[in-house]
């Protein structure tokens, strides 16, 4: 592939590129930030980035939301509904993980008095 082709692909798939960049930003936050709440914000960014990728992959040029109704003519092009159905589940799962993680963080703080991962390592 020539550089021009790659550039063209990158602009057409800009959503994908942004999604992957967000994925890396989230991962960076988890690895490098010592604060546990911050780590979980990073994880949430990662999760939404995967969701963004999946929803974007279901988009179709000129597609309408997949709702059949009276105002919709028979020949309408719809977007792919499966990614939407999957991500609805994904959002719920992400919220559940966040709720549990924050509950753990609260308990951890009550017990140890700090949320800094480096300081927590020293408590044993």
């Amino acid at each position, binding site marked *: 592939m020539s550089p021009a082709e790659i550039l063209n692909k990158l602009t057409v798939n800009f959503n994908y590129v942004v999604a992957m960049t967000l994925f890396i930003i989230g991962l960076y936050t*988890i690895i490098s930030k010592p604060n546990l709440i911050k780590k979980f914000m990073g*994880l949430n960014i990662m999760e939404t980035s*995967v969701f963004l990728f*999946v929803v974007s992959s279901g988009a179709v040029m000129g597609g309408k939301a997949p709702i059949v109704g009276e105002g919709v003519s028979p020949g309408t092009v719809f977007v792919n509904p499966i*990614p939407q159905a999957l991500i609805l589940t994904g959002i719920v799962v992400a919220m559940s*993980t966040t709720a549990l*993680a924050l509950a*753990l963080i609260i*308990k951890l703080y009550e017990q140890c008095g700090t949320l800094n991962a480096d300081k927590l390592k020293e408590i*044993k």
Partner: protein
Amino acid sequence: MLEFSQHCPVLMTITLLVGAALTPIVSRFRKKLSFLWAMFISLLSFFFCSCATWRLYSEGPISYWLSGWEPPYGIEVRFDYVSTITFLMTGLGVLIIFYSRKYIEHEINEDKFSLYYTLVLLLLCGMVGFSVTGDMFNLYVFLEILSLSGYALIAITEEKLNAMASFKYLVMGAISSLSILAGIALLYNVTGTLNMADMALRLQQFPPILTSYVALVLFVVGFSVKAAMFPVHIWLPDAHALAPSPVSALLSGLVIKVGIVGMIRILYTVYRLGGNINFIPVTNFMGWLAAITILIGAFFAFFQDDIKMIFAYSSISNIGYIVMGISLVSFTQPEKGYLGMVGGLIHIFNHAIIKSTLFLCAGALIYKTGFRKLSDLRGMGKKMPITCGALTIASISIAGIPPTSGFICKWYIILGAIEFGKWYFAAALLIGTLLVFAYYIKIVNAIFFREPNEPITKVDEAPMSMLIPIVLLAIGCLVLGVFAYLPLAVIRPAAATILGLPSTYIPGG
């Protein structure tokens, strides 16, 4: 009209799910009822699972279409030979719930009892649902149910370090789930379907593109974290050692195996041997990591004094054996990988039973004495002969001394490694075995042949409700070893179908 036994694969999952949802309501009437209810639900599920297993071996795999939509349009539940692990899950679940009744009084607040049983049922439900599903996204949903309940079960006690161990597990587990979800998303875009069998077919139709390889790597990384393979095993020792003992037994015996089941599903059901994606470099790499995992786990276990910590590190080492077994395959000659696969799969079963026995025994010791250090537990063999006897049987089994069950799987894995000319794998395995042998000798020696530091007078045998599961499991260890053809008969069709051979395949025949 479907027969009753065809409904069983989905019924056993749903029984656990609805049972868990009803547990808080049931316990509102009477606190004591939640234990009986959890027992009833897990027994019911075990019954459904037995029916399904019976049908599997009499009439072949069951394919159940949820809502009646044929795959790939609807979700398919597939009870095949790999799914026989659910038999182990539900069976062990019953024993562990039975064991919990007395034990949790020791470690958990009284108002959390019903939550504990709910979480155990949810954990079982997640594992069972995960193992029988034939749909990629459904796999992810059940994986989340089991992971979430697993994290919470570690942090259910009030100990200081538990929340930290659980949090470490949660962060790594959440990243691995996400990596699996990303893999599913990529693979969905390559194939356009979520059904595993259909996905495998569609992967063969299109020329392989980079995306499929990246998805494979994401899956393998994700499931390696769940299974606690070498570079990403760091969450396991704390989590498994600090959890309440019955929970440790569940986590070490079953939950980490879920990662292995996931790997088997991805590699051999979706990507498939002999297809147009050659994943042998990945399995080779996994084999190397497995060898390191064996050595690292055994090495660290040797230097622990906390009895549960020893078992936790030993779990890491044993995951190494299993992964080594299932990664010894050849892309073009599936028969060649048969021995290693049989060894790996048998070890899933053996290790589940042995490690549960060990953790339950450790739990009984901790329940009675309050000590968890080996140096404090010296001389306990005379005070608690049955518990310590079971502990010895399990220790001998896991060390792999010939008449016991641990021997067969290691023998098969070594044969498999030699088949591929990978003598260094066999060497790693032997060194690992020697180390295991050494530290279990250390335990048995301390418990039976050393004098206690200060005479522990008031300690007697553990209560009946804890002894029954321990003794049953210890008998299980012995039976699996002496009558080795029993597990072999169950495993053989599984290993053959994983490799794409007919289920009646016998090597050389």
